Every structure is written in C-alpha cells, then in structure tokens.
C-alpha cells in the first residue's frame, strides 16, 4: 500500500484541530505563468526570492513583482528577482508548520502572503506547540477586504437592502422559516440557500464561521471557549449551517455556479447568498468570478450586492510576512522587505490595489471606485470588525463547526473499469491510489454523515453496470465496511458511466433528506461506453437537472489523463456542483480531500 501522505484531516483535540486548521489545501501550489513554460523567470545570475501568495492576489502581485524586478534590485552586489507562486493560504500554513517540501513545486518562500493574518498566528501556534520558534512575525498589510454576504440584488432588496441592517440573525430566521422566501413575499424563490465554504480549507469559510459564532453570542470581541461550547450558540450556528447548499474549498465554486445559472436564465435558483470576500463581488458583477482579467465577458443579468452583517465581520487583511525561517538569509530578507515596501508604501502602487477591488493597505490612498454603490458595495461599511479569536478558541470554534455543520448524505461511486488497473505512479495502479484516497477521506466525514459506496464498470450485477457495496448510512455504522470493501476492489470491464450515474442519483433522490447535503461523488478515469443508446449525454443531463428543489449534487472527479473532462463538466454543471481534476493520479488523495470538503 502506498504510504499515507501528511494531508489527512484529523478531528480530535486542540492540537489535532490546529493541524486540521492548517492542513486545508484549497488549490495546490501552482507556479505563476511569467515564463513561456509557465514558470517564473529569473534573469541569469540573479537570485530567486520566492513569494507564496494566496490565489486572489496572484495576478496583482505577479504584475507588481515584474515591475519591481524591472528596477534591477541589487543587494550587496547580488541582483535579485521576486517570483510569485500561487499557494492557497491553508496549504501554505500546513507546509510551513510541517516542513516545506522540496519536490519541485513551489520553493520555500521568503515572503508569504496568506489571505488573513489568522493563518500566520496558527502557524506560529503550531510551531510553538512543537517546540519550534515562530516564523511568521514580521508582517505588513498589503490590502484589505471584508467578508460579506453576497446576495442577488432582488433578494437583498426583498430583505430591505440597502436601508435595513441585515445580519446573521436574519439569515437564521429566514433559514428556519418554513415559508422560506415566502416570508418576504416571494414563495417562488423557495427556501433560503446559503453558499459557505469549509473553514478548514478556505479563509472565507473560516471568517464566516467566526462571524456566526460571534453573532450567536452578541459579542464583537473576546470570544471564549465557554462561548463556543454554549448550547445556545450551538443552536444558532447549527441553524445557519442548515441553510448551506454545500461547502467546499473555494468560494469560486459558488460564484461560478451562480453565474452559470444566471446566464441560463435562472438567477435565483442555486444560492440565495454566499459568504465571500467583498472583492469577489466586483469580479462577479463583471462576469469574471475567477478574476482572470479576461475581456469580452458577459456580466450577470442579476448582479450581486454586499450585505455587511450588522453583527460585524472579519477582514481578510492580506499580510505579507517576511519569514524568520532557516532558509531565509540576509540578502533574501532584504529583497523581500524591499518588495513589500514597494507594494505598500507607494500610493501609486496602492492605487492599483484598489483597481483590483481591494481596500488599499496604505491609508494614504482613499477607498473609492470600484468599491462603490455602483458595484453593490458600500465603502463606509463595515461598521464593526470582529476580533479574530486567539488560536485555542479558533481551534475549538472549528471543532464546533464540525459538530454543527450540515450533515451529508453521499454515495461515493468509484470506477473499477479495467483501465483503473493501469499504472498510476510510483509503482501503484490508479485503482490502488484511488482506494487509498477514498479510505483516507473517510476521516473527513463526521460520524453522523450518511456515506455509501458503489462501484461501476460493465455488467457487474447481471446487466447492471453498477453495484451497491455499502448502502448510505451513518458513517459510524458503515466506516469499517467501506474500508474493507474498498480494500478488495479489483479493476475489470468497461466504463458504464451514464447509467451508473443516473442510478446513483436516483438512489439518493429516493431517500432525499432536506436537512442534509444530498450528493454523489463520481470518480472515473474514462469516458462512457454504456451499451447504446446509453452514452447519450443530453438525456442524462436532463435527468440530473430535472429536480429544482431536491437537487442531488454530483461532484465528478476526472481521474488520470483519459477522463472525458467535457462530459464530466457537463454533469457537474447540470447539478450546480463542481468538477475536480486529478489528471496526475498521484494527486488523487489531495483532490479527494478537496471533494469531501464540500460536506
């Protein structure tokens, strides 16, 4: 069996919860595309000074690094070049706390800019628990963006926006109202649905979770362990979480799906609100949720507006840490400090930060357009900032979220066709690697989650291409059975993809539970080869999208190089879910962890 990687999510105890907090991965580390081959370019003879930055500011900082490098900075006669690497905040925190790998992806950073300073505090806390000196000490804020509730404008207006003060308590009331949006005169909008990311993986998710706990207490600072453990607080948080559509590792999933639904003429059907950073609303309303900067975009028919929760909110303060790490020498440190100074101190540079939709980190630059009412934003808000709890409380809070979050009802459908027996890497077959990933992912669920296991190839059960190995039931009952079933899987046969998908979704629909996230995880390495006419995609898509209220989300995992990305993307889109790609089979454990972050 392949040795377990260090990325498994644990759930027990403060220390392990901290591990969990900093083990969030989000996107993997990806080099920015400065050079033709997609790697940052460093002039010959110059020293590379790597910076690991969270995804939302990669484009901005890559531009600024190029401008800085163009000044040909030199320290003690050594020319230097700042290079920008995209590393999600949670993943960078994990790597800094556990030891940065030297496997050829992003090099150990000299400068680290996560989305929130809370990640730095968690890294230091964890290092201190391990008897190591803290490394995230020297920081300066590059820019700010507050967490907001992004809501389609008509829905916000129905709640009294922009005049009314709206907050988490109103979200709770709406989520628990049996009339749903009918309470605001719009029964046609159905129940209130919230998009909220997983706080183990996403800064927005972490900030939103902090905000809901504070809202439950009525406090704006000094959240305590007693608060987190209080029954009334738990009831409030559970109530808000009950409205969640699904979780996930990135807010982009929600924004992408909202835009797709909007452009398909169903702007209010997927989510009623999503907890995102303010900057994301600007990009969404431009028709560019991923903030690619692309032109010729189609803006949404219904724009999003920002609700700044009346109970207060948390800022993503985007600190730039020059790390006190063993690999940082004096020249690299000075170069990183100079780059940071270049970014923060010059008002002209900071004006560019504003152009990207962030609030400048230099107070000399006033907050203005595009943070404006024209984009559904209010530069005078938020009125109250929530204090980030200390690390021990933060850990307890995330632990509490695990208890209160919406329960899942999921069938994992695993491709065991013959091609899964092909080599995946490091001497293991694709199926071996997938089995390892599935087994590891079970630790991410909570015991109340109902999890089942199906496999498919062709003719596994008479004419049926699929076989139910473990019916969905609370994981505390099925975990052992799923593990042993996964262990015994063998690869054989074809890829009966569509009828298996249809059957799994129907099985979840048959037991649909409104109080749970109802979903199918579909892992496949090939393309459909059902018996004719089984591989007609359109009928499957119509089936998947035929139920607007009782939507079963299908999260496909395109596994290996031969998976049919287009058809799997269509399946994900049909249920407003998300496609995950593990083109390199060796990444399947990490990718599967991201998939399960939706629950």
């Amino acid at each position, binding site marked *: 069996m392949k040795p377990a990687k260090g990325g498994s999510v644990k759930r027990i105890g403060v220390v392990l919860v901290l591990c969990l907090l900093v083990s969030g991965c989000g996107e993997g580390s990806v080099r920015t595309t400065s050079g033709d081959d997609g790697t940052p370019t460093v002039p010959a003879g110059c020293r590379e000074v790597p910076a690991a930055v969270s995804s939302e500011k990669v484009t901005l900082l890559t531009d600024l690094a190029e401008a800085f490098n163009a000044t040909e900075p030199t320290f003690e006669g050594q020319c230097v070049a700042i290079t920008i690497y995209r590393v999600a905040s949670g993943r960078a925190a994990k790597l800094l706390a556990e030891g940065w790998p030297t496997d050829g992806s992003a090099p150990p950073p000299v400068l680290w800019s996560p989305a929130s300073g809370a990640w730095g505090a968690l890294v230091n806390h964890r290092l201190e628990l391990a008897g190591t000196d803290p490394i995230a000490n020297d920081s300066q*804020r590059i820019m700010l963006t507050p967490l907001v509730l992004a809501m389609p404008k008509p829905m916000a207006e129905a709640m009294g926006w922009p005049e009314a*003060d709206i907050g988490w308590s109103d979200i709770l009331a709406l989520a628990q109202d049996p009339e749903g949006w009918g309470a605001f005169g719009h029964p046609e909008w159905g129940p209130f649905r919230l998009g909220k990311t997983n706080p183990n993986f996403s800064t927005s998710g972490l900030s939103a979770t902090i905000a809901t706990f504070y809202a439950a207490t009525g406090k*704006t600072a000094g959240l305590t362990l007693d608060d987190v453990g209080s029954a009334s607080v738990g009831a409030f948080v559970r109530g808000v979480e009950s409205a969640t559509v699904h979780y996930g590792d990135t807010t982009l999933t929600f924004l992408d799906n909202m835009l797709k639904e909007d452009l398909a003429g169903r702007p209010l059907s997927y989510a009623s609100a999503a907890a995102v950073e303010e900057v994301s609303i600007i990009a969404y309303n431009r028709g560019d949720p991923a903030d690619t900067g692309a032109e010729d975009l189609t803006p949404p028919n219904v724009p999003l507006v920002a609700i700044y929760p009346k109970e*207060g909110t948390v*800022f993503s303060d985007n600190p730039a840490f020059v790390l006190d790490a063993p690999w940082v020498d004096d020249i690299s440190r000075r170069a990183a400090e100079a780059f940071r100074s270049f970014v923060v*101190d010059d008002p002209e540079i900071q004006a560019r930060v504003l152009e990207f939709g962030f609030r400048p980190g230099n107070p000399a630059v006033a907050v203005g357009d595009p943070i404006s009412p024209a984009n559904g934003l209010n530069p005078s808000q938020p*009125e*109250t900032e929530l204090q980030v709890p200390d690390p021990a409380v933060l850990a307890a809070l995330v632990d509490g979220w695990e208890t209160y979050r919406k329960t899942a009802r999921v069938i994992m459908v695993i491709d065991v066709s013959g091609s899964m027996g092909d080599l995946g890497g490091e001497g293991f077959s694709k199926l071996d690697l997938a089995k390892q990933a599935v087994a590891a992912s079970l630790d991410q669920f909570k015991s109340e989650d109902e999890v089942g296991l199906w496999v498919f190839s062709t003719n596994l059960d008479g004419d049926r291409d699929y076989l139910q190995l473990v019916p969905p039931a609370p994981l505390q009952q099925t975990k052992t059975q799923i593990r042993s079933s996964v262990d015994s899987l063998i690869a054989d046969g074809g890829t009966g993809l569509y009828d298996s998908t249809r059957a799994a979704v129907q099985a979840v629909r048959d037991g649909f539970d409104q109080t749970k996230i109802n979903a199918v995880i579909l892992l496949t390495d090939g393309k459909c080869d059902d018996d004719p006419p089984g591989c007609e995609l359109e009928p499957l898509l119509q089936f998947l999208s035929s139920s607007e209220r009782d939507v079963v989300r299908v999260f496909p995992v395109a596994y290996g190089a031969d998976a049919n990305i287009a058809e799997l993307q269509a399946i994900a889109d049909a249920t407003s879910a998300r496609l995950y790609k593990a083109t390199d089979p060796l990444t399947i454990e990490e990718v599967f962890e991201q998939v399960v972050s939706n629950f």
Partner: protein
Amino acid sequence: MSNWRSALIAATVGGLILLAGFLIERAPDDGTTPPTSPDSASEAVLACPAALMPACAALAAELGTTVRSYLAGSDPGPGTVVIAPAGDIPAELETGEVAARSPIAIAVWQDREGVLKTHCGGTVDLTCLSSAFGESWRDLGGLESWGDFKLGLADAAASEAGLAAWRALASSGVPAELDAALRLTSADDAELMADLLLFGTARADAVVTTEVAIAGQLQNAPGRGGRLVVWYPDPAPWVTYVVATSGGKGTDDLIADLLDGDLQSKLGTFGLRPARSEAAGLPEGLGVPGIALPDLDETKRATLLDAWNGLR
C-alpha cells in the same frame, strides 16, 4: 487668510510631505544600518520614532542629512542623533534638551462625535469617552449598526506616547468597562493611527493618542482622515521629545541645528509643538491643547503600568 497664502502654505507643506516620503522610503528601517547620503551637509544622521517621521524627514532635508526610524529602547549607534521621548531612550545614551512636544488628544470620527457631543452635553473629553465604555451606540443615541463603542490606545508598556495616553485615560483609576471598549491596540501611536484609518469605524470609534500622530495621518491620508475630529483633554499629559546621542562625528552640530529657532518654527506644520514657543502653521483640524500635567514620578509610572498590564 488670503487664498494665495493658503495655497502657498499648502504647496509648501505638500512639498515637504513629498520630500519626507522620498527620504523615508529610502531610509532603512532596521535601526542598525546607516544610510548613505552623498550630498549630506551633516555628517550625522537623524533617527526618529514613526510618529515623528514626517517632521523628521523634512528637518533632515533642511539640514542636508537623512533620517531613519528609531525603535524605542534601541541603541542607534554612533553618528546618530535621536529625537524621541526621554523614556524611550536607553540610559547609555547622552540625553540633551527638549526638541519638541506633543499633547495627548482625542481623535473621533465625525459622525460619532456628533452623537457623543449630544450624549455628553457638548464636550467630548475623557469623561465623555469613559461614559461610553461598555455602551452600544444605540443606547448612546447613534445607529444600531455602529455596534458597541470601541476605543483605541497604543501599548502603554511599549512607548512613552502610549503611556501618556493611558495616563490621560486612567488619571482617576481604570475606567469601568474599559476592557469591553478597548478594541484597537497598537505598538505605538503612529501604528495606532494608521490602523484607525485603514480599518475605519469598523475597528475603533475614537483613539486617545499624541497630537503629532493624529496630525501625521491627517496630512498623509486626507481622504480617510478628513472625517476625523480632534478634541483635547484639559489638563493632559504632554509627550516631550528630547535629543540624544551616543556621540560621533557631527552629532553636536546636528543637535545644535535641531534646536535652532528657525528650524523649531517649522515644526508646527507637522503638528509638532516646538520646545519653547507656540506652534505656528499647525495643520487644519488641530486646536488648542490642554495644560500640561507635571511629569510622572517613578511611583506613579509603576502604578500606571501595573494597571495597564492588569487590564490586558
């Protein structure tokens, strides 16, 4: 004041700020490495705490030297003249005359000030602030969306400026409910003001700090600081900034130049009060400060610090 004179003063101040920015940007901030200054007329360099940086950079430009930041309690090395509160200067340095002063003041956001004035009968002083601790803005007469009253203070244990602000607030004991109201704390007065402007009303409704720190941000960030109103407690602690040096070439001359009357007369444009005369040309928004309280003795200092540490 006539329009052309206003414009001239504005242009002069603006130019000095730009020059200050230029010089500060190029000054290393590690407090150890002297900057190079090929055109220097003075062989010594200047070191100042962050709140004095705009003024110090302009003074340094005038004197043909450069400036770098000074961290409280550090040794600036030879050939450096420090301007800082006496309490922030280590004993091994030779401390000289007072070079400048700054009273403790209250900066409050304009909309909050209006509500506080009504709540407190027309005056926003320390008693007024104390009465707001632990209260919600709704109860004070403001908007519910403003949440609870939030105060900012610099760390009293980290700098004289922070201690002076704390002294002003705690002159008759730690105010009730202060722990509930104290939301913004920073290492020093300059950082406190920068954070206030950066996060706005979300982080604090008012701060108690040095007038010079407020003035620095009013000038540096007019777009954000324009919504701040300054009030002066009376009487109030004043922070006095002395010159100090560990010696070295040119330091005596630089000290003499800094204390020269002409140069002193320019301090007011940066919100800094001269050592022995009235300030002239103060930035718009500043006013008449309270009478200075006598210097702290060691017993009172220790008592204040104990109270601060107990609060935190």
